[in-house]
């Protein structure tokens, strides 16, 4: 039998089995949780900003779900460190698939972008641009 598909290339499996920055952070600047009810994927992203209120110092995540959603959160936590809130806000779906380095089938794209969406929603709530009740981490 085959060695498994493109979608599960070593990188994703590696991040899934050995997640980076997984756990609870002390004193995050903001923290947000979202889920994909149809898959049962849940992700909490915690972000600590530097004193300039813009540069991302550290990111941690926790959650449950499929390999794509969890690996995506793990990779994102690494990727965001040292970047800025505006860079986070500008991340789109293509950036996420590029980060994952694999083609994600249309049915699975929701899993792939969950962590990014949660982080973006968390940032928007922190900046007062979004009401918690309006977060659409499903989409």
């Amino acid at each position: 039998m085959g060695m498994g598909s493109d979608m599960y290339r070593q990188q994703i499996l590696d991040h899934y089995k050995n997640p980076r920055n997984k756990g609870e952070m002390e004193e995050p600047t903001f923290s947000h949780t979202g889920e994909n009810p149809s898959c049962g994927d849940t992700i909490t992203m915690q972000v600590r900003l530097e004193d300039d209120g813009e540069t991302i110092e550290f990111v941690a995540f926790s959650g449950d779900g499929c390999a794509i959603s969890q690996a995506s959160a793990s990779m994102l936590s690494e990727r965001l460190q040292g970047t800025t809130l505006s860079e986070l806000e500008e991340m789109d779906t293509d950036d996420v698939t590029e980060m994952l380095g694999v083609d994600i089938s249309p049915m699975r794209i929701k899993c792939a972008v969950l962590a990014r969406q949660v982080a973006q929603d968390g940032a928007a709530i922190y900046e007062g641009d979004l009401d918690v009740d309006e977060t659409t981490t499903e989409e």
Partner: protein
Amino acid sequence: MGVQESYPIDVAAIREDFPILDRKVGGDFTVPGEGENDDLPLVYLDNAATSQTPRQVVDAIVDYYYGYNSNVHRGIHHLSQEASVAYENAHDRVAEFVNADGREEIVFTKNTTEAINLVAYAWGLEELGPGDTVVLTEMEHHASLVTWQQIAKKTGASVEYIRVDDEGRLDMEHAKELIDDSVKMVSVVHVSNTLGTINPVAELADMAHEVGAYIFVDGAQSVPTRPVDVKDIDADFFAFSGHKMLGPTGIGVLYGKEEILEDTSPYLYGGEMIRRVTYEESTWEDLPWKFEAGTPVIEQGIALHAAIDYLDDIGMENVQKHEELLAEYAYDRLDEFDDIEIYGPPGDDRGGLVAFNLDGVHAHDLSSILNDHAVAVRAGDHCTQPLHDKLGAAASTRASFYIYNTYEEIDKLVDAVDDARQLFA
């Protein structure tokens, strides 16, 4: 181990009637010996979601559009007469198939979901109120669960759920407790699309009738897979979908006892369902047309007729037997592994589907890997979210079988599951 008893039907000949089964899919990874990016023969194990369509059914659709496409009932020209007769005959054929008394008891809808909504709106909104109870089961499909839940909210009625026990069967003692004088409707799934449980619907019908309640049976998974006799069950309402029984999408069937349908007001208003209209008043057409407002599902009705002919040629007892053989084989093969949890009753007492989880691998990951092996299954909550909550699983992977499936295809499923196991180890 899995025993391969000989098939009760000629699977090879049946497969010839389904061109889609010759398709190859996947091919985004390398299978040793097959060259890079070779596509693999489709293994279609998602029949509980929708079945494939044989030539005979497609031919009926083509014959209709090329031969006598026309609106029904309104025209007296030749084509309209042919279409009307074919469309009406389709109702008779469906009635015969489930042993209803006649076309008066057979309403064509869009699908099972719409059939349940029809009764919930037309009967439920009128008849339910505070103090009344609707009894469902914990294994209900969202099609009935959400519908009755929402109608109950609108009317002030309450909803109770018959418990599912550890083996995935209904707790009939609990059913007895719940079905009391306050109950006006018992709505139950015949064969569970997640657990594969075959529910004792005739017994539940007796319990419902004893307290003067109606019973609605969701037959979306039973009519395609076994002989069903609505009179034996003594169902007041019964629903199923054409697309799960070799027919096209866009058609469902609502069976209702004639005297109950007579007493029920229409659900949709408009053309085709009226007898006499003035600016002030309207009167209704006879059954079943009273419930089929507007231009109906003509093509789909005619195609459903062809699908039923096809199934009857095979014989529903044989279809059931084939389903049972494959379900038991799949259950036994998957049950060999300690890291696989299967939901629902044992392999020798279930409908033709097996929902399971592989330890440490999310159902969506598993089904993605199965897809790479060209094995088509369903992953998710199968429209039974509350049941999955109860099972403690966010999702599961479901393989479901039909007349064209084989033991070899189940072996491919098990091999593909093993590949996922290795990948995630």
